[in-house]
Structures are given as C-alpha cells and as structure tokens.
C-alpha cells in the first residue's frame, strides 16, 4: 500500500512543479512582450488554481486525513480551472493547436470529472489509476501552452507580417 501512496504523492509533485514552470513562463512572457499578450494571464490563473488543488490533495494524501469539505472545494477548484482553460482557448482560437485543444478537452474533462467523482463519492483502490492519468492531462496542458506561446511569439508575428507584405 505504501507504494500506492508514494505514487499519489509523486503525481501531485509532478503536477505542481510542471504547472509552476508553466505559470512562471506565462508571467515572464506577459511581462516581456510588447504586443499580443492576450490569453496569457487567464491561462496562468487557471494553472494557479490547479496548483492550489494539487497542494491540497498532496497534503491530504501525505498526512492521511480526508476532510470532505476540503475535498469538495478542491474538486470545485479543479473544474473551475478547466472551465477557465476552455473559455480562454475559445478567446484565442486563432493561435491554439486545435488537435491538442480537443485532446485536452476530451481527456482533461473526463479525467477531472472521474477524479472528482472518485474523490467525493467512491472509496476505491482504483482511485490511483485516475490520479496517475492526471499526469497525461498535465502533459497535454504543457505541450498546448508551448505551441500557443510559439504561435503567438513575436518572431511568428514578424513572419506573418512579411508574408502579407
């Protein structure tokens, strides 16, 4: 059983580190860019919410205390983060990678919903599978943001301007 607990904690660790990297890159890019900042900060806000949720989950797993109220708040925060992600992606539809977006919506929403359901209503050993699948969501988020930043970079804008001229 110890190894399962360890897998859950390591998953939360991966989530928080990768998301912290993404948030810091998004904020740095937002400060550095003179134009085309649209869509950077809402993504950062959504990822910050996910970091808070992963900290709360990792604390509960590490201390082995499950508080229903905190679990409900965490599930709500995660779903809110996904809603912010989808809303902002629709706002900046022109610059995003559509395949990654649909992968994120399908995988992300289903896993987040399953995670919330397992955490709130079902006490089962299979919860670890859902927790580990969450790494897949983080990986898709990561590549989605990288392609978004590349598509909105100033170099690309220059290229676009030259091709129009």
């Amino acid at each position, binding site marked *: 059983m110890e190894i399962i607990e*360890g*897998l859950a904690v*390591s998953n939360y660790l991966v989530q928080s580190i990768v998301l912290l990297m993404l948030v810091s890159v998004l904020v740095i890019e937002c400060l550095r860019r003179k134009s085309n900042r649209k869509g950077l900060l809402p993504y950062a806000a959504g990822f910050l919410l996910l970091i808070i949720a992963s900290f709360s989950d990792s604390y509960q797993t590490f201390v082995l205390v499950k508080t229903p109220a905190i679990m409900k708040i965490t599930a709500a925060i995660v779903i809110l983060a996904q809603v912010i992600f989808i809303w902002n992606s629709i706002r900046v539809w022109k610059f995003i990678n559509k395949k990654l977006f649909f992968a994120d919506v399908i995988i992300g929403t289903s896993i987040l919903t399953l995670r919330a359901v397992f955490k709130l209503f079902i006490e089962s050993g299979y919860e670890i599978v859902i927790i580990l699948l969450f790494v897949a969501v983080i*990986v898709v988020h990561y*590549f989605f943001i990288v392609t978004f*930043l590349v598509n909105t970079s100033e170099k690309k804008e220059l290229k676009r301007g030259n091709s129009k001229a």
Partner: protein
Amino acid sequence: MISAGDVVFAASMLITAIILFWITLNHMLRSGKAADFSPFFFAGILLCFSSALSFYGVFDQKAWFVLELAWAIIFLAVLIRLRRGNHGNN
C-alpha cells in the same frame, strides 16, 4: 525512518528535475519545436517520480524496475533523435 541521506538524494533529484524542466521549456520556446525536446521533459517527470518515491522505499520494490525501464526508453528516444541529426528534420 527518513535519514538525512535520503533527503539530500531526493532534493538533488528534485533540483535536477526543476533545472531540466526550465532548460527544456526555454529550448522548446526558442526553437519552436516542442517534439524534439519532449524526451527531456519526460525525463524530468521521471526524476520527480523517483525523488518522491525514494521516501517510500521504492528501491527495494518491483516498481523500481518499471522506472528503470522508462529511463531506458527515454535514452533510446534521445539516441534515435541524435542519430537522425539536424534536430529530426531529415
């Protein structure tokens, strides 16, 4: 019982993972090719897993074999990309 050695070992893996993530992310953004640097991103994830699992005695269990196998796959992916040359454009 967690010893000081365990903490130093895990912390060093964690710091390496953070540096690896940061460098990989910057290279991905600068070159605009996310796929070329993806094995290093997965290596960072593995380092994070190893660092957290080191507190749960993973080194004595079968799960360690899976982690080592994942490292082998990552090294193989890097090797294939290096063999292709020109950042996988050939």
